[in-house]
């Protein structure tokens, strides 16, 4: 395949970035998107240039490291996959592909396509955990949990924290991420005692990090590689209002 790439290049957080054009020749259809970038980078290095920086790790869709906004859509337009799971056969020979970093003030660009997503870590630190010592794994069924609750908690827990929800949101809101993390822990008995505090703290930290406000457009849900549901956002809204009232009246 022969492709034209329009790639965001930015030397460091403080420098001005711009879109640079690269010709990608002889790209095999079976290559993943990241492998395609590896091939392009090899060419850039051979020519004595500076390779395109991008995040990657497991390359099997479970770590949440890879990012990239491809033709305006985080992780590309195929649904429920990460960039590393996107293959070049989904593109046509001669295509022009725009590759940009995940855009949000709370995700500052470190270099080229690599962004700093540590704001997500700080949200988790603010309340996305269970404080009690859980000890070693308990016997199965010693703490009965409804099947529906267990399934929902697991669905929420599949969030890999990649940040595509923020990148896709017109307002750079992190509500899908925060609601998934809150839902995961709030659905389980171990998470119940700290439920209200968790919701208040995580939302407070989310706002402090400079994420935008959800306007119920559901772009986040559409691009989420793990298909996290926007109904979790609705539940977080309700839990936040309820926790505020409980806090106010003591």
């Amino acid at each position, binding site marked *: 395949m022969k492709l034209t790439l329009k790639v965001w290049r930015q030397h460091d957080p403080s420098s001005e970035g711009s879109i640079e054009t690269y010709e990608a020749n002889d790209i095999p259809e079976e290559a993943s998107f990241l492998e395609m970038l590896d091939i392009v980078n090899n060419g850039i290095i051979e020519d004595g240039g500076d390779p395109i920086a991008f995040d990657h790790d497991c390359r099997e869709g479970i770590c949440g490291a890879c990012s990239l906004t491809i033709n*305006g859509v985080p992780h590309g337009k195929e649904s429920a996959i990460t960039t590393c799971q996107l293959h070049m056969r989904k593109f046509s020979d001669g295509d022009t592909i725009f590759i940009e970093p995940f855009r949000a003030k709370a995700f500052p660009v470190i270099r080229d396509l690599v962004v700093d997503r540590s704001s997500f870590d700080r949200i988790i630190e603010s309340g996305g955990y269970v404080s009690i010592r859980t000890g070693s794994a308990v016997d199965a069924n010693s703490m009965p949990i409804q099947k529906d609750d267990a399934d929902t908690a697991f669905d929420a827990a599949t969030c890999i924290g990649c940040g595509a929800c923020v990148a896709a949101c017109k307002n750079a809101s992190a509500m899908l991420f925060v609601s998934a993390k809150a839902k995961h822990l709030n659905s389980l008995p171990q998470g119940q005692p700290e439920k209200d505090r968790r919701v208040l703290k995580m939302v407070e930290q989310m*706002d402090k990090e400079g994420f935008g406000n959800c306007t*119920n457009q559901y*772009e986040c849900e559409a691009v989420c590689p793990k298909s996290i549901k926007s*109904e979790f956002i609705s539940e977080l809204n*309700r839990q936040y209002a309820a926790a505020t009232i409980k806090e106010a009246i003591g």
Partner: protein
Amino acid sequence: MNLTANSFIKFYGSSIGKKVIVALTGLALIGFLLGHMIGNLKVFAGPDKINAYAAWLHSMPSLLWMARIGLIVCFVLHIYTTIRLVLENRSAKGNRYSANATVKASGASRTMFWSGVIILSFVIYHILHFTARIGNDYDGYIDASGRHDVFRMVVDGFSWWPASLFYIISMSLLCWHLSHGFASVFQTLGLRTERTWGLIKATGYAYSSIIFIGNCSIPVSVLAGWITY
């Protein structure tokens, strides 16, 4: 008491708190729209019915003013809070994509601010036109029973086609606004579940359509000559 006040100040300062305020005030305005439309449709029942209805409303000035003040408070809070949210959102997004794409967001959801601005200009015109009656002599319209002749005011008001056209355009934008806003209220207040979501959205579209058809039927009927005196 101090803790209570602090909790609510913090709530209003938060992203979710502001959204809840927009949703609650929006819900109050959505409810008003239906009541206002049902009252206005009395114009089809003839001059006596609508004039009597208007006289009945004005016979309770304290209640009428309480409702008016409540509506103004909702309207101002809805707009002020939305402006704050929009400014925060613009600042949160920073750089836009060179290749911008929309996967799921509806046209209505992406134009809420601008449809809102036009609705605001309509509301100002509408109040000056029929409530404050500025720039016209509708105050002098009195029917045979000595009541304000609302029927004649409506017929005269809509007989000028540019006014009717502006009303119809504004109503279509209002319903465009509601087509996103109605379901959004439920999402923001946490009243949505997977099972009820389809029903909530369908109700929102139906409600918007009823408001559009009901309100537009009046200027259309006047222009068509179906309502006349």
